[in-house]
């Protein structure tokens, strides 16, 4: 019987590992469809940003209560994984509580600590679920934010229920375990009571040894299979931020938020036009086939990593002046659309031996509308809000460049503004000769 369990366990572990690996490969290859951009300068500054923002979750504490709850889930997730290591080894080796004899009385303390974290995760997840479903936190409601309709709203709840089930499994498993220990059941290494699960012992009064063992095993398998399922699920979910928050903050922009990325290909053209540089002789002018971004392949790899890192929390959208005042623009939707497009491309690549075959669709037009990107005031509120330094504005501005320069799809009043700027050197129709008339008012 033991050996059967071990074989099943090893097979499940192997399959999960393979499935997760396959997903990582697809995600990686879609991110690499983005344009190259060097984000490796100032490694020291980058590392400290990552430690503060991702590891230390600094920005989450802007809202202290939510920050603490989120930290409880994060710390629980991170540290309980140490116990998962034991569970995996137990599963593979057919042992039970492998570390208990090695660690002695410290083991009991350690499991007690994990239980403390588990209770924290449990409480936080229950509160989060209440916020989503009963208190109806505005930024998470599909009725107010169309991008949350369907799968995204469900995804958020599924993750929370997942974690609640996992935590209940681990706590009741420990309770059943100590009851079995007290019975003197052969396989159950004596560890003594654990700090929280001991209160759950009354649940098992009157159970005989066999049913207790069955429950303990059931909870053990629920916990570990749950974690395996979670590992696969995460790669499809908004929850991917648990991993990507780290590289995403490491590679975040270090320049002032107000600075827009230069387009060197245009600098060259402008210099030639102004006679500051000679046109390269003979060679045709290397004009790029596209200005700005129409599809995800025109964006930088970092924009694409941003999209996979987004947890759809909606802090950006709830701070966006356009969204607050009822416009269609939602920075969160910009990120979700970018990821949706990447996921669609990933599926195309999977059936075409890893090659992206054009499907006639593009991010601009099929996923994001012009009305959305036109409503942006470039105020950087979304960028400021993101707890893991995602930059929706950068994508919006690249899409605008394509709309205006390649598609000539600017609103009429913008075209008039461009014309004024080119002929009068001012966005309004004033004569350049009148520019200094204000000085007459200085008397």
């Amino acid at each position: 019987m033991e050996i059967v369990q071990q074989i099943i366990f090893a097979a499940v572990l192997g399959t999960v590992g393979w499935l997760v690996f396959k997903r990582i490969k697809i995600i990686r290859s879609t991110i690499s469809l983005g344009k190259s951009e060097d984000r490796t300068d100032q490694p020291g500054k980058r590392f400290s940003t990552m430690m503060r923002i991702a590891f230390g979750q600094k920005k989450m504490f802007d809202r202290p209560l939510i920050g603490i709850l989120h930290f409880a889930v994060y710390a629980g997730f991170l540290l309980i994984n140490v116990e998962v290591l034991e569970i995996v080894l137990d599963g593979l080796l057919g042992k039970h509580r492998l570390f208990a004899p090695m660690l002695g009385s410290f083991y009991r303390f350690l499991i007690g600590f994990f239980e403390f974290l588990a209770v924290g995760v449990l409480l936080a997840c229950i509160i989060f679920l209440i916020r989503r479903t009963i208190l109806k936190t505005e930024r998470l409601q599909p009725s107010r934010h169309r991008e949350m309709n369907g799968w995204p709203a469900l995804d958020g709840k599924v993750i929370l229920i997942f974690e609640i089930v996992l935590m209940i499994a681990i706590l009741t498993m420990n309770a059943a375990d100590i009851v079995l220990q007290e019975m003197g059941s052969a396989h159950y290494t004596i560890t003594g009571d654990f700090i929280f699960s001991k209160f759950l012992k009354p649940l098992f009064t009157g159970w005989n040894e066999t049913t207790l063992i069955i429950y303990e095993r059931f909870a053990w398998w629920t916990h570990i299979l749950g974690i395996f399922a979670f590992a696969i699920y995460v790669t499809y979910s908004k929850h991917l931020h648990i991993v990507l928050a780290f590289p995403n903050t490491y590679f975040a922009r270090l320049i002032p938020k107000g600075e827009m990325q230069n387009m060197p290909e245009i600098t060259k053209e402008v210099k030639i036009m102004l006679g500051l540089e000679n046109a390269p002789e003979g060679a045709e002018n290397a004009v790029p086939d596209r200005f700005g971004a129409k599809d995800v392949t025109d964006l930088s790899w970092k924009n694409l990593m941003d999209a996979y890192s987004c947890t759809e929390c909606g802090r950006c959208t709830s701070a966006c002046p356009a969204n607050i005042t009822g416009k269609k623009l939602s920075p969160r939707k910009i990120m979700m659309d970018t990821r949706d497009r990447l996921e669609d491309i990933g599926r195309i690549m999977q059936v075409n031996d890893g090659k992206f075959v054009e499907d006639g669709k593009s991010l601009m037009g099929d996923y994001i509308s012009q009305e959305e990107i036109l409503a942006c005031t470039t105020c950087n509120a979304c960028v400021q809000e993101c707890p893991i330094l995602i930059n929706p504005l950068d994508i919006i501005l690249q899409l605008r460049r394509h709309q205006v320069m390649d598609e000539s799809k600017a609103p009429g009043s913008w075209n008039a503004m461009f014309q004024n700027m080119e002929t009068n050197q001012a966005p309004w129709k004033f004569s350049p000769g009148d520019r200094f008339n204000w000085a007459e008012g200085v008397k």
Partner: protein
Amino acid sequence: MAEIKYKVPTMAEMAASNETPEILFWVGCAGSFDDRYKKVTVAFAKILNQAGVKFAVLGTEESCTGDPARRAGNEFTFQMLAMSNIQVLDMYGVKKIVTACPHCFNTLKNEYPELGGKYEVIHHSEYLQQLINEGRVRIEGGESFKGRKITFHDSCYLGRANNVYEAPRHVLEALDADLVEMKRSKVKGLCCGAGGGQMFKEPEAGKKDVNIERIEEALATGADTIAVACPFCIVMMTDGLKNKEKEDSVKIYDLAELIAQAEGL
């Protein structure tokens, strides 16, 4: 106080007499053409005169920095204007620029260097703070602001874009006014609705205009003066105030106007 004779020298005049100014005052398009904002330009020029700052302007040689075109997506127009501005600035050997417009400030400071234009660029809020700290600007001789309730509206391109939050507040504190903050201020400050080219087009359909949302918040502070530090913000907030029919009881001024009033200029 002795009458001072205000002067607004141009870079061309300075160069002709072989002089170099301490700073170049970059006026910007709104500062040059917008009737409301010209008053801010005039106020700032008077402050510079009073403080004895040796400054100059480009006059008719100044062009738009190109910011609205760049934000709207037209990189060509932006770079054309930027390049010709850089040519002019470099021709005069400009080192230090002060401007009252956060959009000009951001573009000159952050975006010109990559096109070859490298200058020290300071927003007028920071420069006013410096002048006050150095004692070159003394808050005396004019209107008293003691105990008056003033709220400050953060401009996106000054605040979030460039992390200038304290300088304008220090300037207001120097007035000895009672500075009250809006619900959303500093990093959380709400845009006036004009950035990113919005100033030059109609807003998209929605349930409200951004400037109305913001003016409601400003009015909720109970302040009788709304201080701003950006030409676009002044237009948007003033429109909002008119919409609320509050233009008699609440006034909107740029920092430079408030200082000039306090100095009696």
